[in-house]
């Protein structure tokens, strides 16, 4: 284990109150557990991938870390400090250190602001006394760094392509030189060729600036390519986490196995030959999750005992690998194409 993790989530919970329209103000609202007891560690300079299907709470987790969604339980320790107990001044500093890259590149940019204004906004917000010339110079430098021509500084977001918009979003996230960047599905809305460019750019920047990164996606092959470690989420919980290579080649949890077997292999012969495990049914409602193991309703290994207690994280001896299934067994799968 590492000494003191850079970022540590300890049984983090995020709950939303759902009020039925027209109900009385004093009737207790129904609870939606978007993130339900997630514990994860992130070392400095490391990239943690988080995968899971839509509605599994990945984005909510990201928003809880960045502080736009209130947590309802558990702790977020950032460099050993509890986020909830920070003074306002420290919180501002924390905001500087943690930045986010969003899913929809165009929607994340204010259409009425020029690219220069957008990229400079974090800088101007946190250091309002920075001289304008310096702001401009830093913006131009950063634009060059992320692969945009600096003379496009006065253009507006709608004049750019999706990939360029995402580069603008990356530049905005990096102008304060943060320590942690959270990427919430940064490439899902892009073409495959552009995806590769943006991911390579992110990896390059991570290496050069020594960033820690949380990379959220539903595409396992993308996550495997960029991450050092991967966490698999399902219905607000971590099912399995561990070293990226090990987790993708020797997954232990039935859910991860099913996820990996659904990644297509770009060779028709291999694709036809391999065994397929298809997850049937829909994601259960997070308002009313199944008891015990949340995956048991769709699991091929489900047994009566799965409905009882919530399964504990079991560490695989000698490996950086933990799995939340008592019936886990390694299954050698075909290499995921990256």
């Amino acid at each position: 284990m590492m000494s003191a993790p850079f970022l540590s989530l300890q049984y983090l919970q995020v709950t939303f109150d759902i009020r039925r329209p027209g109900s009385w103000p004093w009737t207790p609202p129904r609870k939606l557990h978007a993130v339900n007891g997630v514990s994860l560690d992130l070392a400095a300079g490391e990239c943690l991938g988080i995968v899971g299907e839509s509605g599994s709470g990945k984005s909510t987790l990201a928003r809880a870390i960045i502080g736009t969604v209130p947590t309802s339980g558990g702790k977020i320790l950032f460099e050993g400090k509890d986020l909830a107990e920070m003074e306002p001044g420290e919180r501002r500093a924390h905001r500087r250190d943690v930045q986010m890259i969003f899913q929809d590149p165009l929607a994340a940019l204010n259409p009425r602001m020029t690219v220069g204004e957008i990229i400079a906004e974090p800088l101007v917000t946190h250091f309002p006394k920075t001289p304008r010339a310096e702001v401009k110079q830093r913006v131009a430098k950063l634009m060059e760094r992320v692969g945009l021509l600096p003379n496009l500084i006065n253009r507006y977001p709608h004049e750019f392509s999706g990939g360029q918009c995402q580069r603008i979003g990356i530049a905005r996230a990096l102008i304060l030189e943060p320590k942690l960047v959270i990427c919430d599905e940064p490439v899902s809305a892009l073409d495959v060729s552009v995806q590769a460019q943006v991911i390579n750019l992110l990896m390059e920047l991570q290496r050069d600036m020594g960033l820690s990164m949380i990379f959220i996606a539903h595409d396992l092959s993308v996550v495997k390519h960029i991450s050092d470690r991967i966490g698999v989420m399902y219905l607000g919980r971590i099912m399995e986490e561990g070293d990226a290579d090990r987790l993708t080649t020797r997954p232990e949890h039935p859910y991860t196995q099913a996820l990996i077997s659904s990644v297509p292999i770009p060779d028709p012969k291999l694709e036809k030959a391999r065994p397929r495990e298809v997850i049937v049914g829909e994601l259960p409602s997070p308002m009313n999750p199944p008891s015990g193991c949340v995956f048991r309703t769709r699991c091929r290994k489900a047994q009566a005992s799965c409905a009882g207690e919530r399964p504990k994280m079991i560490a695989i001896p000698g490996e950086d690998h933990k799995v939340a299934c008592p019936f886990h067994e390694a299954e050698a799968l075909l290499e995921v194409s990256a």
Partner: protein
Amino acid sequence: MYPDKTKMESLTQAVDAAEVRGRSLWTDARVRFMRNKAAVGGLVVLIGILLFALFGSFFQAWTHEAIDWKLMGRVAQIGGPSIENGHYFGADELGRDLYARVVQGTGISIMVGVVGSIVAVVVGTLYGATAGFFGGRLDNIMMRTVDVLMSIPFMFVLILMLVIWGRSITMLFVGIGLISWLDMARIVRGQTLTIKNKEFVEAAIAVGVSPFRIILRHIVPNLLGIVVVYATLLIPGLIMAESFISFLGLGVQEPMTSLGALIQAGSKQMLYGAWWQIAFPLFFFLATLFAFTFVGDGLRDALDPKDR
């Protein structure tokens, strides 16, 4: 085959060096507006009317209060429009110059519309954006207040105010200003609710921009299109309201006048054949309303191209 390399290089250098000026959404909207002939026509008419109201008084031969005693009692027979005696639009039943009175009345009418509209834009936008952005209990309190104010019969209250505190133009402005922002606040709040869920607002929150700056820098510029359109379309409504009040005799008081008061006076004189007394004020009244409506429609099409 290939183009001259040095030339190409100097070209790329030139392209690299110059900062490209972006086309903002406002520029796009202006281009679209200029392509809309009805809207540009409306704008030209509107500018004409504004110039008439502002500078028309320099060309008048009589002031709006002066009585032409020669015409007294014989207005219907000899008080018609004429260049010789300086009554370009004719004279009213007391022998006052109708041209000067129309210039003055148009000015008052437009001022009522514009002032009411500015109040609506400033108060309504900030109020609605604040309610929509913060949401929750604050939103509930603010919007229920608007509901309560809206449920008060405005015309009735305005008439009462004019009766109690005296019929003055200030009171008219106060009354119209008090109610004009209510609709705007509702529209702006609704728009804010959709805008605040966009990712760029979330990005600003995540960066740590203060709520007030988010409202001013991210939300208001994005709903300004709708605000401008609504404000332009609000002006004719306010002019109508003022005219109605003046028609009842409660609005602008003599010797000042407004288009509504002139039309009211003119409608009485139609019986005696003094057609000009209603024709000229009515013409300016309708032209102003049509022009504002066309401009408003053009602005809507220009600023909101998806909604067509």
